[in-house]
């Protein structure tokens, strides 16, 4: 109990518990993970809300994210500045959304953000091509990529604007059988 007190106040821990899907232990572990990423930058004492952000390059190297083809996008979409600099709040937020407990709707929103490479609130063909190339390590021929992207849009596009809005995406993803089981990270 003693060392916990030094990192967060109880109030803070409670607030974090209310705002995330983590228990107090997990939050403390998250902090220690965050701290490990850059021991000289991140203070051990978070009681007075230090303003400290870690750059994308550091966070992406966590083993949980290291193999993920969308790691940069994940971190970017959770960072407030869009550049991938994460404060501890955002860091916790990221893993909370990706945790097992988070509901499908919440995950869908962030999945949409992650796959929206050019941040225009639509998944257009360009985004899909990028997604596909990351998923397959560019093993598909360009024609195949075009075919797949066109098919994907055709399948999910309900309003006929040739790109996927969030409504389209949500409609598609809520029916996907594996979405919940694959879109989560254990930490």
């Amino acid at each position, binding site marked *: 109990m003693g060392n916990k007190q030094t990192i967060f106040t109880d109030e803070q821990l409670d607030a974090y518990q209310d705002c995330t899907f983590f228990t107090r232990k997990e939050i403390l572990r998250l902090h220690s993970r965050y701290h490990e990423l850059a021991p000289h930058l991140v203070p051990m004492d978070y009681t007075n809300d230090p303003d400290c952000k870690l750059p994308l390059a550091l966070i992406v190297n966590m083993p949980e994210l290291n193999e993920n083809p969308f790691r940069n996008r994940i971190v970017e979409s959770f960072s407030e500045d869009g550049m991938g600099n994460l404060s501890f709040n955002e860091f916790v937020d990221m893993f909370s959304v990706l945790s097992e407990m988070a*509901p499908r709707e*919440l995950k869908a929103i962030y999945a949409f953000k992650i*796959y929206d490479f050019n941040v225009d609130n639509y998944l257009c063909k360009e985004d899909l091509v990028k997604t596909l190339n990351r*998923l397959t390590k560019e093993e598909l021929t360009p024609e195949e990529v075009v*075919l797949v992207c066109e098919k994907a849009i055709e399948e999910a596009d309900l309003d*006929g604007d040739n790109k996927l809005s969030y409504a389209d995406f949500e409609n*598609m993803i809520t029916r996907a059988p*594996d979405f919940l089981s694959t*879109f*989560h990270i254990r930490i």
Partner: protein
Amino acid sequence: MPRKKDTDDINIEMDADESESDDGGNNKRTNNRRQGAGRGGARGRGRGKKPASEDEDEDDEDEAPKGRRGANKKKPVKKRGGRNAKDDDDSEDEAPKKGRKGAANKKKGGKAQDSDDDDSDAGKGKKGKRGGKKGGKDEEDSKGKKGDAKGKDKGKDKDNDNDKKKKKKKDDSSDSDSNTNSEEEESMSEGEMARLMEEVEEKKKLIATIRNKPWRMKRRLVHLKEAQEFVDKFEGALGKGKGRKWYAYKVMMKKKWIKFSRDFENFRTACIPWERKIKEVESHFGSSVASYFIFLRWMYGMNLVLFGFTFGLVVIPEVLMGLPYGSIPRKTVPRVDQHSAQDYSVLMDFQGYCKYSIMFYGYYNNQRTIGLLKFRLPLSYLMVGIGTFGYSLMVVIRTMAKNADVGGGDGDEGEFTFAWKMFTSWDYLIGNSETADNKYASITTSFKESIVDEQENQKDENIHLRRFLRVLANLMIVCSLGGSGYLIYFVVKRSQEFANRDDLSWYEKNELELIMSLLGLVCPPLFETIAELEDYHPRIALKWQLGRIFALFLGNLYTFLFALFDEVNNKLEQEGSIRNASLWAMKEYYANYTLFLNDSSLTPPPMPPADVIRGPCWETAVGIEFVKLTVSDIQVSYLTILIGDFARAVIVRFLNYCWCWDLEAGFPSYGEFDISGNVLGLVFNQGMIWMGAFYAPGLVGINVLRLLSSMYYQCWAVMATNVPHERVFKASKSNNFYMGLLLLILFLSLLPVVYTIMTLPPSFDCGPFSGKPKMFDVIMETIDLDLPAFLGTLFSYAANPGLIIPAVLLMVLAIYYLNSVSEAYQNANMELKKKMQMARDEEKNRRNNTDSTNQVMKDLEDLLPRGSLMAPPEPEKPPEPESRLTKTKPGSAGKGVNLQKDVALASPNPNARGPVNRSPGPRGAGPGQGPGRGQGPGPGRGQGPGPGRGQGPGRGQGPGGPGPGRGRGRGPPPR
């Protein structure tokens, strides 16, 4: 102000005391919280009164500019947790205070009624404090719940809150009823109270659901703080926050349960053997190759069960309780063979010691019961033989049914194949680079599979040419199958002729085998080449290929069985003469024995068991044939892999450095995994096992070893030496085609075994059934000797043809009935699928009704304006301009369109709207609704002309011009 502060002080202290006395077990945190809450409540009561409108203002503010306020708010809040927090009361910013005051005011109103007689500040404070405390406690509760619960708990929370709310309201109302006299002028109206309650509830809900909001953490924290404060302030005397521990317990159990089920799931998948191996193969070679390995694994499982039966009920009892080796003739190697019985070559041919071992039928004794347990070995032997088939049939059919249940269609996964693949196929849990590489490969493969499917769908070809080519290909294949069939028949006949002659050349001796292996070598590639003509999807092509090679191999089976039966017949004849001879010898012996010793007791001749004359024992011979065949099959297939794949891969890989052309990309290249050959090999091998298991119980054990080793060996070979197919294709979800082949083979192998059991007499001097005219007499014997007599008569009745024929009829009827039922279900399924598709189209249509995707609807729309032909019932002209008007609307009046869309979304069924529309008068909401409907025609027409027309008159009653109609159309929403 100072006075109020005093009361605050008092309140706090009292609160602290009470909280300690209440439940000291709670930790500091809760204390703090409670204090805060109590203080809040008390202070609120003591403070000023503001109109409720301010509250609302504050609320609105809450919603929007939270981020702004968050920064300075956090600190005060944090500090307030302390005991003497009242000091920074004044430092708090104004807005929340205001709100608090206002709300407190209301609360006070409520409370004032509560406190019936005394108006003293202290008393009130106490009460308020208590209320506040309870509030705080509740708050804690809900928080605790939230702390770990998932979305589900949210609902519960809400319910709880609602309950509380109700309770509170009831309290309030009853109180106010009983004491209406006190402080009327300060109290709030019921309505305001209710609104406040609602706000509190809302805030609570917000707290409960805040983790589900897609906000940034900072914003979430701020909102949380505000909501908590709000609730702390205004939560009055609510229901007791009972069961906090219970909740904690429940939450804990839930977490434990999740963890347990996850572990259990992991454990279960870990229990499935070779799952990872197969996944790995699948990720590189596609599901079609993996389907072979899955099939192999399934076979292994089935054979393991068969192995268990055979060894548990036949072999092990015999080993443990039967007579040992050398005790009787059938368990001893004959004297003639003893010198060579241990030679390697003899053992490899399964002669010598091998032949007289538990592996084969002949070794088993015909003693009715063996050992202390009186184990009925012959009966058990027969039962296991029949049970093997029974179990196999059952398992195969059950698996087929289950697969049909799961799979159904070939490859169509529904509407979002590609989209799902793209967005849900990456497993975010992967943290290992090797796994990640596999995942990349598997995703790529699965995309390729889907692309192949898709291309197949998109292919638009000359259908007549294709059909012609397919017919041609089938013709050619039928011709070649017929040709090879005749060739086999011819060769078998010739070999029968040759069998009687001695002057045979080497070729003539081995003609049959040569022809068979030649056919097996030439035909499959030939079929594959011919199949190119057909240009089927690879998955379907594989099925055809399998079917054709299967037909070819049936010839193999035919010749094999033919040869076997010849041999058996020969042996039977031979046995007959030996039996006569030995009987005669025995008779002589006994005659002499009684002659010389005058002793009629029958002592067997004092002959060592190795010297006894014995028959050929055709059952063991058959068993040896099957075992030999199986073993040579194993050797051949392993050698093929070693040479055909591994050596080739090594050569291609290393000779490539010093060769004139590119070996890897050019001619020899690496081998592809031969799915059809391997599957058929497995299926036919299983057929051999089924046929041979009765005569060689050890065969099942050999097969289990074979499958086990082949799993590892082939997995390694495929990963190390093969390349994926050019067109990686998805296997059909059910392995039912393989299963179908297996079932066919099972049936085919059932026939000869049952035939031999039922008709051929068992050998007189070997095996568990020796001495009986037929093998199944064992059952008769058991019925007669071991079961009560009435059961015997019962069985004899049951075997009566008069009973059997109706039973067969009944079964046929049942099959017919079930068949028609399943057909009906299939139809219903199709119907439902169609409906789903339609619903989806409809949805698409509705979302973009500017551009209807359904061509028919479009045409209808086109017809509409000049559609007097189409719709005779149209009474007036007005519809015409109107429809034109609705057509222009989308372009011109944005709001109109929006509204129109909304209406369409709200009530998609235009028919439902039609009738209401005709009588706007009776319904009170005339002005509001009428126009709203009036705008309807647009979407309505999208659905069909009927309703659109129906609305015509309704509009006619309206003011007429489009202007007013639209103007009023905007009215409804606020209402």
